[in-house]
């Protein structure tokens, strides 16, 4: 059974079926989308028992020649680094689909592009051939362009093209770096595992140049300072469910790429860049938090909090310790879950009030207790309250980084305070204080909204009190990557 192909291409089959359904049959279109995204989710969950946590080797490998005359293979496989990402993607896709049920405009196209996007995201995490990886990486761009540009907010068209051009510019340099690696390998291969064995033979300058090419592509996706400017715009303008996908999965592609490709294929370049990476991480953390603090638009605030949280991931990676790496990967998962929930929650209030301005509300906790409860839980998780999932990731990142980058970690801790400040201020303004009578007509969350958010909240608590399971999944692989 080719599980990974099934997971990756089930949404594509769904997308093609949707193309054949007349556009008036919206229920049928939604059902098909759920069935095929569901197949991916179920198949990925079904892989859990078969996934061997005790090895760093690639599992569920599928390999055959795709373009033999250029040495390109169709090569899929998962290890402890990519498997959690695949689970995250299939899970968040279904959650985002539930969040997409409110879409009324051009339903057929929406679900078509959504499923194509899912194919790209899953492919990125499965691919072990650089060209295959690149193809999937780019495959996410076009659907995202349409999803932002057609269904987004007021400045959607600008946001869409900015996102596209920004990420494309990054990834073409990645392509050049990939081609350089290809020609540097005596066997002329794009196989990541093969290439990783050859790194000893490449000189430092070459590795630094290739690293910079790769980093440019990854950093824009992460987004690492100073390449983060596309993110607030894209996140704010995108429809709610797409913001969820952007935050939960697309940003992770960058960090994943850093670990999977940059770190393993250009170790000397990575070493050379470490001081800069640590500094960038600190800037992301502090600057992201300060920017978030300055926002009055809740969605924009959450968007900047993503810049801040990806900074923790980078800091964890820069630590080059098993705790740091584990923290980074764990932070990727928890950020996906928590920020996904935050975007959904902001979407809930926006659907009702048609504003996201923090100061427009007040005392909502009286009127919307369930909403206020879930929002508080998620905000606390996001600012790193112990007992919730966000804390574990941040703690491990700091723990891993502190051994090498004491001062950086010390400054970055200030970022946590700023994060706490802006989340608490938002909660205070929206939920506490005097009730704003203007919103007397607001209703609490509907069943559909609860179905999409409660699982995320539950996972937030679960991973907060029992982080062992996800950590066990990844430990062997990360230790192997660090050469232990």
């Amino acid at each position: 059974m080719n599980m990974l192909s099934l997971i990756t291409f089930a949404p594509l089959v769904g997308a093609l079926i949707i193309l054949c359904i007349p556009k008036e049959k919206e229920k049928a279109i939604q059902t098909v989308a759920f069935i095929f995204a569901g197949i991916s989710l179920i198949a990925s969950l079904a892989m859990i028992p078969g996934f061997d946590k005790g090895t760093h080797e690639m599992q569920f490998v599928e390999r055959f020649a795709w373009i033999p005359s250029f040495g390109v293979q169709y090569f899929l496989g998962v290890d402890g680094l990519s498997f959690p990402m695949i689970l995250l993607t299939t899970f968040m896709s279904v959650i985002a689909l539930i969040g997409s049920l409110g879409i009324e405009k051009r339903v057929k196209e929406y679900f078509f592009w959504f499923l194509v996007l899912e194919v790209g995201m899953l492919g990125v995490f499965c691919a072990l051939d650089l060209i295959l990886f690149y193809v999937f990486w780019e495959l996410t761009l076009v659907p995202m362009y349409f999803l932002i540009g057609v269904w987004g907010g007021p400045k959607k068209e600008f946001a869409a093209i900015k996102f596209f051009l920004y990420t494309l510019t990054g990834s073409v340099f990645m392509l050049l770096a990939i081609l350089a690696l290809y020609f540097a390998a005596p066997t002329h291969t794009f196989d990541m595992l093969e290439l990783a064995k050859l790194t000893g033979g490449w000189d430092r300058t070459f590795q630094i140049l290739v690293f910079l090419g790769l980093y440019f592509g990854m950093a824009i996706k992460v987004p690492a300072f100073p390449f983060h400017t596309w993110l607030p715009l894209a996140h704010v303008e995108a429809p709610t469910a797409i913001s969820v996908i952007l935050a939960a999965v697309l940003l992770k592609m960058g960090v994943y790429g850093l670990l999977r490709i940059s770190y393993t294929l250009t170790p000397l370049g990575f070493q050379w860049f470490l001081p800069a990476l640590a500094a960038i991480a600190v800037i992301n953390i502090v600057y992201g938090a300060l920017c978030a603090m300055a926002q009055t638009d809740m969605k924009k605030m959450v968007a900047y909090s993503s810049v801040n949280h990806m900074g923790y991931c980078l800091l964890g990676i820069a630590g080059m310790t098993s705790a740091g790496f584990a923290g980074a990967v764990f932070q990727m998962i928890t950020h996906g879950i928590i920020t996904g929930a935050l975007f959904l929650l902001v979407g809930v209030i926006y659907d009702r009030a048609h504003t996201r301005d923090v100061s427009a509300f007040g005392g909502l906790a009286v009127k919307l207790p369930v909403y206020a409860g879930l929002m508080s839980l998620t905000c606390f998780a996001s600012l790193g309250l112990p007992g919730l999932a966000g804390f574990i990731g941040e703690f491990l990142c700091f723990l891993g980084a502190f051994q090498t980058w004491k001062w950086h970690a010390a400054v970055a801790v200030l970022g946590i305070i700023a994060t706490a400040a802006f989340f608490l201020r938002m909660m205070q303004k929206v939920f506490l204080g005097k009730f704003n009578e203007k919103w007397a007509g607001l209703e609490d969350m509907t069943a559909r909204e609860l179905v999409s958010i409660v699982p995320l909240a539950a996972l937030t608590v679960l991973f907060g009190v029992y982080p062992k399971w996800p950590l066990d999944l990844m430990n062997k692989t990360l230790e192997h990557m660090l050469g232990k």
Partner: protein
Amino acid sequence: MNNLRLLMPETVLATLALVVAFVDLVLPARKSRVLYHLGWLSAAGVLGWVALTMGDSSAHGTGTLWAADPFSQFFKMTTLLTCALCLLLGLDYAELPDSGAGTFSALMLLSTAGLMYLVSATDLLLVFVALELVSISSFILAGFERRNPKSNEGSMKYFLFGAFSSAIMVFGISLYYGATGTTKLAAAGAVPGPMLILALVLILLGFGFKASLAPMHFWVPDAYEGAPTPVTTFLSVAPKLATFAAIARVFGAIFPLQTYDLTLLVSIIAALTMTAGNFTAMFQTDVKRLLAYSSIAQAGYLLIGLAAGSPLGREGVMLYSFVYVAMNVGAFAVVQAVGSAKGSYDLSAFDGLYKRRLGLALALMFCLLSLAGIPPLAGFIGKMVIFSSAVQAGQWWLAVVGVLNSCVSVYYYFAIAHRMFFKEPSDDSAIPVGAYVCGGVAVAVVGVLLFGVHPEPLLAGVRASAKMLP
């Protein structure tokens, strides 16, 4: 006789062109649409013939002025394919008077025959004669809409530029004769020196005119804008690719760029062509002009493969050429359908196309994405091979300029996509699509998708036919 036998396909095609012209004289005007069919069937028939004899080594050999080898066969196929598709488009192009069908088809076929001679030529005499055959037919074709002032203007500019560049080419040939004592393209008797280099540079510039390389590209937008859309399609593909084949033969195999220190010059021309094409295309509001500049930029990418001067670069050029036929013909076919229906080629004609004809909008989208080099479409594979040849040759700066230009191109390709999918149409009526345009678009889109997802047969085919005879 073996000598002439090698040129059988193009000779047959030229004869068929004359047959079409002759039938036009005796056929009543109301039936003259038959001549389009005769035209595309002739091209398709010869295409089938060339394709079937691809692997047949008895069809290959060296003649006095020409060489029929897998390389030239390959480019003959791309040219014939383009010609057949463009004649199909002509069937659905209302602005062409039916009474001109015979002349039109005959000129297209003659132009194609000229290009087929060009890709086989190993002697500058044949190169020149073939180029003139192509040019003169194209001048007339570009001005075929006699009542359209833009068509006249474009044709005139094309003619003047063409005459100028022919003169440059002839001057180059005369210098070449001076340096080598022959017009035969062979390095053996050539004495390397300033005169030979100057001759080669002038010949390169002469080719550059046909291939729309900067700084010889100024005629392109006007001629493309004014010409009937099927002719624009033809001009943007066939002469360009055939000229690249000729450049590859002269400057790839016979006088390698590296040996004559021309690599830097060609690299600079490539960079200039891409940049000029892309940065001018960004400001266009007429879709035909936009695609004209885009085709200039595409010529720049192709030239990267030649500047690399390696077998991989040559394969890249061949691969990209083949893919380019599909994506450019597909794009122009949709543009023709929309432009004819709206009576205007302004960008605003594409507003809300998704509502008026989703199939056309998607087809154009695929072709544009492929032109931009976004995977998993065929254009990506072509660009990847071309850029990798630059990386392999160590021409980093050229590869960087190339990929940056790809990003710039996305901006204006997506300006069209933006119109098609994000804007609302001024009226919701469906755009009529003729059966032949529909067929042309379908062939193009299937090619773009199929060779993007499964490029191996194409790559293997290209590798097998990259062989050149001296």
